[in-house]
């Protein structure tokens, strides 16, 4: 069980959170993209052997949706890698 930093509450036990999936590309205008682009947006998620950006919901806490960078090898919560926001 991890300790997840909530912007409102501070570090809290993972059991207070619900996993919300990895952060994927912004939703494109469905009327402006090709079928292939639309399918890629829906089905492709980053799956790195290392830091991944993901969403968590503080469901049993303040209700905040938050974003963290987590290293998939160690589960350590890490700084955003260079080049990402």
């Amino acid at each position, binding site marked *: *069980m991890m300790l997840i930093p909530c*912007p*409102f*509450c501070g570090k*809290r*036990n993972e*059991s*207070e959170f619900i996993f919300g999936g990895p952060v994927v590309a912004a939703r494109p205008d469905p009327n402006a993209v090709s079928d292939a682009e639309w399918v890629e947006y829906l089905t492709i998620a980053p799956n790195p052997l290392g830091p991944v950006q993901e969403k968590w919901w503080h*469901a*049993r*806490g*303040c*209700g*905040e949706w938050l974003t963290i960078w987590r290293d998939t090898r160690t589960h350590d919560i890490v700084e955003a890698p260079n080049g990402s926001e």
Partner: protein
Amino acid sequence: MSYDIQITRQSLNALFDLKGASAAIESWAGNALPNLPDQPNSRTEKEAVELYHIGRDHWIARAPVGQEEALEARLKPNDCPADVSIVRISDTLTFFRVTGSQAGEVMAIACPLDLHDSQFGDDTVTYTDLFGLKALVMRCKDGYELAIEQSFGDMVEDYLARATA
């Protein structure tokens, strides 16, 4: 009971859920409420009305059930502007008190939160995980007060009984 504690299930409270920017809420209902707590997960009180700051742009006002109508009349949930949400939720939460010398130990069974004085002060109030449910936790005289979604009331009473069997 193998732990030195008392568990008391409380009757109805008057509860109102308030959402919106603090300025907006203050300007609409400021006089009806204590000062808005500025610290996250902290509480203020004025004339038996308590105000819990339990989320971003999110507060809960609590008063004795006897004041429910009066408070509602002052908060006017149905008339408040678009950028403020006020909803009566008195029936949605059931409150318990866990008091006694070993209250802390029973809370340690119930929830993962660090309730040490250095981490969890007298004016702290926060949502956390309690027996796997979302619950409001705060200190009270000789122990802790917790609130869970009303429909889980019987279950939590059952859990607490087992925890202290």
